[in-house]
């Protein structure tokens, strides 16, 4: 007799799940029945319209089709195998890149609405590209529309914090080497390190000098070394790093070290000038976050494999531009659902407070979207102090994310959780049903351009983004159900 059958009710004993007024289950408990009590919260924030959309997506006639779409999307995500295949110049490799195009983090944003750090990065980018010689001139040019702006995500790229990609920057080129979507490529700039850096909106001479070094030395040396070494399996590397205390977003020390070890001989062999090789190795060694700019495009590459599943409720993008937080779904790639970027809760560097903080910014939440970062917090107890927590909180965070994800990634096993995989594939429906938002680890940028990083902590997306996505998906699924002959269309790149 299986648990669900009606006969089991009459054959006894009863085993209850109870929601709501506890007194209603008193009789059953008194009779000795086992009662599992649920901490009930109104789903979807109790909003009647959302409740009805959500019920349709979870329990309606199309619900099992949504489940199946999610299963297929997740299977492709898990099967993907991103490799680092090259380092090249952005304008040469990023699809749609142009000399007058600057890419930025998050959903689309105009110069007028750009936050301080993003404006700072744009100014820095114009100085770096030689389009302006002073910050004032750069700001004038930007305001006058001298360059176009577009989200990194519209070009299969991702960028941390401001996420600025200008045409002459060197970028990592990743390629999916397995699964149905083999050949998919994603892109990311090279990580500058901590302190005053362009991605936090700094554009001093020191910042520009470093960017020049990265363009003239770091990029070409790594390109040559990679060519000699051959592709690097990033998932393999990430899996090891998760067992060495990294979570792939706010802690990248282990993965950076592993990459360094892997590439060092090739760097030395590929570089005639020993001093040059040494400087590159020093740079990588001195930057614990070097691997972040690989864990991010790795996540993007995995998530691109999940895209294009017409009924899927899985989230494939979470990204912020410092003003708006945007998400996308596997069912509607390219379509943004946005809400206001939130304040980060965290620890500040000495001399800074919450008043200095810019709202949440960067494409780095792609790591959480792919099942690492905050979702792998249990792997990185060392950084849990950023959120003022204990090692137990780290485990709880990862477990909690298991409540809003479609599955786990067996390739990313966490020792502290009995080697279970990281929770992967955020299901919009579960976010709404539990009212539980994804936990994102992140850095905090100063709100003024030019200052840089002031802290790190934990942030959640705005509920509005999920609410908007829920309404759109319900409509999308209704349309598909009404016209099964024609697969549901995915309107591209409209900002609701």
């Amino acid at each position, binding site marked *: 007799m299986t*648990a*669900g*059958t*009606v*006969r*089991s*009710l*009459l054959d*006894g*004993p*009863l*085993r*209850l*799940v*109870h*929601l*709501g*007024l*506890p*007194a*209603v*289950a*008193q*009789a*059953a408990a*008194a*009779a*000795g*029945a*086992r*009662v*599992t*009590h*649920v*901490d*009930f*919260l*109104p*789903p979807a924030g*109790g*909003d*009647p319209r959302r*409740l009805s959309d*959500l*019920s349709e997506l*979870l*329990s309606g006639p199309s619900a099992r089709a949504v489940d199946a779409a999610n299963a297929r999307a997740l299977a492709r995500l898990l099967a993907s195998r991103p490799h680092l295949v090259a380092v090249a110049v952005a304008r040469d490799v990023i699809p749609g890149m142009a000399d007058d195009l600057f890419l930025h983090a998050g959903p689309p944003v105009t110069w007028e609405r750009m936050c301080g750090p993003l404006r700072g990065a744009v100014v820095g980018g114009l100085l770096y590209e030689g389009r302006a010689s002073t910050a004032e001139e750069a700001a004038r040019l930007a305001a006058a529309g001298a360059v176009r702006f577009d989200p990194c995500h519209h070009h299969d790229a991702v960028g941390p914090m401001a996420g600025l990609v200008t045409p002459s920057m060197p970028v990592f080129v990743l390629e999916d080497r397995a699964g149905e979507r083999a050949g998919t490529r994603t892109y990311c700039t090279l990580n500058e390190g901590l302190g005053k850096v362009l991605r936090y909106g700094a554009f001093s001479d020191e910042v520009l000098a470093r960017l020049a070094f990265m363009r003239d030395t770091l990029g070409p040396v790594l390109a040559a070394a990679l060519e000699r070494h051959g592709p690097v399996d990033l998932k393999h590397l990430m899996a090891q790093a998760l067992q060495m205390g990294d979570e792939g977003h706010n802690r990248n020390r282990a993965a950076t070290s592993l990459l360094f070890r892997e590439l060092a001989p090739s760097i030395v062999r590929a570089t005639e000038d020993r001093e040059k090789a040494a400087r590159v190795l020093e740079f990588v060694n001195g930057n614990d976050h070097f691997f972040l700019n690989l864990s991010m495009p790795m996540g993007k590459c995995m998530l691109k494999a999940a895209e294009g599943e017409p009924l899927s409720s899985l989230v494939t993008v979470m990204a912020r531009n410092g003003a708006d937080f945007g998400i996308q779904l596997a069912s509607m790639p390219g379509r943004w659902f946005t809400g206001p970027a939130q304040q980060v809760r965290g620890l500040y560097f000495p001399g800074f407070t919450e008043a200095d903080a810019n709202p949440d910014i960067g494409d780095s939440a792609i790591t959480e979207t792919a099942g690492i970062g905050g979702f792998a917090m249990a792997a990185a107890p060392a950084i849990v102090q950023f*959120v003022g*927590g204990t090692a137990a909180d780290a485990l*709880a*965070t990862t477990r*909690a994310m298991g*409540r809003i994800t479609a599955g786990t990634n067996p390739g990313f096993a966490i020792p502290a959780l009995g080697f279970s995989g990281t929770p992967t594939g955020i299901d919009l429906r579960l976010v709404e*049903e*539990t*009212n*539980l*938002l994804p*936990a994102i680890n992140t850095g905090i940028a100063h709100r003024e351009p030019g200052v840089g990083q002031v802290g790190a902590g934990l942030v*959640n997306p705005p509920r509005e983004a999920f609410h908007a996505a829920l309404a759109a998906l319900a409509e999308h699924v209704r349309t598909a159900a009404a016209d099964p002959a024609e697969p549901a269309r995915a309107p591209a790149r409209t900002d609701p």
Partner: protein
Amino acid sequence: MSAVVLVREGCYQDSARLMQVGREIAALPGVVEAVAMMGTGANRRLLYDAGFAGAALDRATPMDMVVALRAEDDAALGRAREALDRALAGTGPAGVEATSERRPATVAEAIAADPATNLVSVAVPGPYAAFVAHRALDAGRSVFLFSDNVPLEDEVALKRRARDLGLLVMGPDCGTAILSGTGLGFANRVDRGPVGIVGASGTGIQELCCILDREGVGVSHAIGVGSRDLSEVVGGAMSESGLALLAADPATRCVALVAKHPAAAVAERLHGLLARLGKPAVVRYLGEPARPSADGVLYAGSLDEAAELLSASVRGGGMARSDDRATVRMKVGRPSRDTEQRLVGLFGGGSLAAEARCVLAARGVETTSPGERLGPGAPLPPGHLVVDTGDDAYTVGRPHPMVDQTGRCDLILSAGSDPTVTVLLLDLVLGDGAHPDPAPELVRAVEDARAARDGRALAVVVSVCGSRRDPQGTGRQERLFQDAGFLVEPTAARAADAAAALLLGIRKEVVR
């Protein structure tokens, strides 16, 4: 005097807790009135209509707790704020933080925690109930749906789905069920036995169980189906499923169907089903005289009679009824024209009120139920009255009288103080879920009323629906009534019978 709205964001509480907090704050010195509710659209409209306003109220969501109060001065307002903070101490913002372990928060999580779960019991506010019940069906589990205020179309959809899945949805508005000896909601502790019940009335099921219990006959299962199951729209969907289950159940030897006001087509279809059931079947449609029995399906004129027929059947005596048997134990009296001799019935159980009305009418005592909510202290409408104090009009913003008797006690005091009222008719439902010790409160209310009558006698008749094993102690509750001079009867029908006899002067004892 200031009208103030206090809002606590992200602080969901169940209705019992809200009422408790509201009462605590209302009891503070200088607080004239206070009500605590969640900030749903409907609740906010109620508050606007009651004269509350403000940006905090405008912004409140269904996840936010709203306390609306009128305070005499700032000091009283301060006390109210402190009391609210105290009441909520330890209740963190809900659903935001992901940093601590917690109990399951959804049906799916709870079933994952105990995969052997075979029933999901739902007592959440009406607007969320259908969502949760669907999630239980998604997981392939049957549902006990206690919640009321569930839209009719949701009930139809749930029951259609349950039928397709071969599952049960017991409810919405299902007060009682007993499955394999385990009670759900309001239920009496009765022994297991040969009688299987399908019922659309919670107190109807309880009363039948308790009469059988007194006769030493146990119950195999009592499958509640919700008060609207036999309506035309719902079409008796779960009554049919329940009867089919009982037909196939080896522990069930005979079957009872208890419901109120069935739609004609549904009653006809169920009659056909009962006739082909293969087991003796008794039907009681509450609040109406017995229908003619046919095709071996017996229609009883009261729950008492239904119990008698079932007992006879399980004792091997076979069942038979003749229309003259019914429940007639009293001579029908002459209808009283004396407006100074009135009967007022104040019931906690809606079906029991209907049974009483039916018996009183048969005795020539025509009763009305007041069209408008009776207020404590307000003058009574003319004539004999039977009031269901568990009706929606009396339970908005307060618990059911089976749980909290404050409202019914207020009405007992005001009706009992009226010198034209000479007979008071009450019911009392015991069992799990009900008030833990109800008799003393009712006795006190009657004694207060009697004290206000200048020595004019007030007869009180009460029916006690309780089993031998109920936690309140049925015998003790009955003795407390007897000690106070109440006439105690085992069923609402018999209590109504006795009350009619007293009113008509056929019976004169126990008048104090």
